[in-house]
């Protein structure tokens, strides 16, 4: 009808449109594969086989997904309050300090189940701290959160290089990393979980922080849709003028939402540091903060969408490695392209196909009502 943006059924809004956007992103990625002279179908086969073909592969896929659930939730929480947190990369990086400090302090004297809760607090606190400043600067000084968080990514990167090369590096070591943690700093694997399905996890670092990620997803759902704070965040995100009317203090919400977002990013650091490498290395975040943007956009900022979107990206990361192994011309950077395309089509161009889909729905609806009217007559 006159307004194609108006009403689409829920399943089209939350299912069909993201799916169409995703499919287009993959089609374009397929073009790139063609361009380098390989078969997109073969690549797709290796991607899926590499991600799910074996227990170990699934373990890796879920290991990556764990990371992306955290960063995806972080972007989503901020976006519900109308804030674009593009600084997840830096917040996750700094969150690593919290994990590392707790592990270095306790790993030799405490079991993992004592260290882990403290490390969670440490990671969240450091991540939140790194998000607090941009949030506070926007709330009180009016600086644009997007620009500040970008700047904080770079500042975090310099800070971490400094810390890892000068402060946290053990004496006599050349590598810019902490010492390797002992038992207390190593998270148990979730081999039993995949074992239930008869799968062998092999060397995959799929660990208990996955459960924490699921818990965080549930926590975010509660926060956003079931608490007064979440309610206030959503009012502000949808309509700042309604928030003022309702007596919601935007400065307070901005700072809190950013800190929660930063805390979630920080918790991402648990997975690689305590779950895989057992030490903090340079660049352990590896772009996960940015993947979070794609995951949140794909998942429509809802935990129930973010988990599958994170698994999708986990699949890309793990399966992408497999493609790189089987098809040497296609390196793992293919994932970065797909990630960018997903952000483009699910984000900036999210409305590109909406008018067309809206028209299809409108014409189906009108022909249906016409036919029912004909039946009635």
């Amino acid at each position: 009808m006159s307004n194609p943006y108006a009403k689409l059924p829920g399943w089209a809004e939350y299912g069909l449109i993201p799916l169409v956007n995703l499919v287009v992103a993959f089609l374009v990625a397929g073009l790139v594969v063609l361009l380098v002279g390989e078969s997109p179908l073969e690549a797709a086969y290796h991607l899926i086989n590499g991600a799910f073909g074996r227990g170990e592969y699934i373990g890796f896929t879920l290991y990556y997904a764990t990371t992306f659930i955290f960063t995806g939730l972080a972007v989503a929480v901020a976006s519900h309050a109308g804030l674009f947190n593009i600084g997840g990369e830096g917040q996750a990086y700094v969150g690593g300090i919290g994990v590392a400090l707790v592990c270095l302090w306790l790993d030799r004297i405490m079991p993992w189940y004592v260290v882990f809760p403290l490390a969670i607090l440490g990671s969240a606190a450091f991540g939140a701290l790194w998000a607090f400043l941009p949030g506070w600067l926007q709330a009180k000084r009016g600086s644009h959160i997007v620009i500040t968080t970008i700047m904080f990514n770079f500042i975090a990167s310099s800070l971490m290089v400094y810390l890892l090369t000068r402060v946290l590096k053990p004496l006599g070591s050349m590598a810019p990393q902490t010492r390797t943690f002992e038992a207390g700093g190593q998270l148990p694997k979730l081999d039993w979980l995949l074992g239930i399905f008869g799968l062998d996890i092999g060397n995959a670092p799929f660990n208990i922080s996955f459960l924490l990620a699921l818990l965080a997803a549930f926590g975010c759902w509660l926060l956003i849709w079931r608490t007064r704070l979440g309610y206030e965040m959503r009012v502000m995100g949808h309509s700042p003028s309604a928030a003022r009317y309702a007596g919601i203090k935007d400065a307070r919400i901005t700072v809190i939402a950013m800190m929660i977002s930063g805390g979630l990013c920080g918790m991402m650091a648990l997975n690689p540091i305590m779950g895989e490498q057992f030490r903090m290395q340079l660049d352990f975040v590896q772009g996960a903060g940015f993947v979070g943007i794609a995951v949140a956009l794909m998942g429509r900022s809802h935990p129930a969408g973010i988990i599958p979107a994170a698994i999708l990206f986990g699949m890309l990361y793990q399966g992408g490695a497999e493609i790189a192994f089987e098809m040497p011309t296609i390196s793992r950077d293919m994932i970065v392209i797909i990630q960018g395309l997903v952000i483009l089509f699910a984000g900036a161009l999210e409305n590109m196909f909406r008018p067309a889909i809206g028209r299809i729905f409108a014409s189906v609806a009108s022909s249906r009502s016409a036919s029912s009217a004909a039946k009635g007559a």
Partner: protein
Amino acid sequence: MDVFHMLVTVLESTIRVSVPLIFAALGGLFTERAGVFDIGLEGKMLGAAFAAGAVAAVTGNVWAGLLAAILISVLLSLVHGYASITQRGSQIVSGVAINFIVFGSTVILGEAWFRQGGRTPALAGDARFSTITFPFAEEIRPVPVIGPIYADLISGHFFLTYLAFAMVPITWWILYRTRFGLRLRAVGENPGAVDTAGISVVWMRYRAVICCGILAGLGGAYLSLAMTAGFVKGMTAGKGYIALAALIFAKWKPLNVMLACLLFGFLDALAIRLQGNPLPLIGQIPVQLMQALPYILTVILLAGFIGKAVPPKAGGVPYVKER
């Protein structure tokens, strides 16, 4: 004399590293003054650097490389324009997307076409820019003070270096002395005024975005055709973001952009120079602090602690005709 010599060396490398920043930041100036924010400068430069390196390597012609760089960068600008002007999508999301797409594509295509681990073949001869030596540079060099300044600072750079510095007054002139510039600035401040004056807001913004593409393309070409002999994976290494910071730091004004880029370039050059060399009195300054300084300064500026950076009023907002 030793200090002087060191200073000349640092200033010389300041110029060298500032050039891509100046190109990119001036490009950003064009779009952002027209009301389209662009955090995709990084991606545009990277794409351009790759296109330049690849085409120059294949054709052996540096100019073909330069042209390819500009074409790719303009193409990426048009994608950004389509998403943010025509589709009225989020300008930030679009910029982020472009950065990723380009980063991945340059590696994949580079590896597929040249099989050198994401590099393009090393360029030599006509396939890359050579430095231009001014007359009498060698003769004057022994003259104290003036000699090294003339020979090392003024002479001996690439064509693109001189172009970058020439672009500063040219950009100023375009922005403040031409009809195009007047309309461009107006469309970033109050598109309604432009629309009621009978000028197409959309077309104005597209033209601004194309200008940005050309300049970012030159910046990218400089990286792979002049500064380095060929493309290296991820060679922009955040320069697009530094350029963005410089643009904000310069409060969206052309001359300030040059100064901000030179300042950030100087910090970079100094950081390299000071690595492992403790300063008298102060002692060792962490390189990382020097590297982070441009970002820290920009944050402080944005927070309004040193002056106030007021972005173009209509920036970041897609234009919708009222009612």
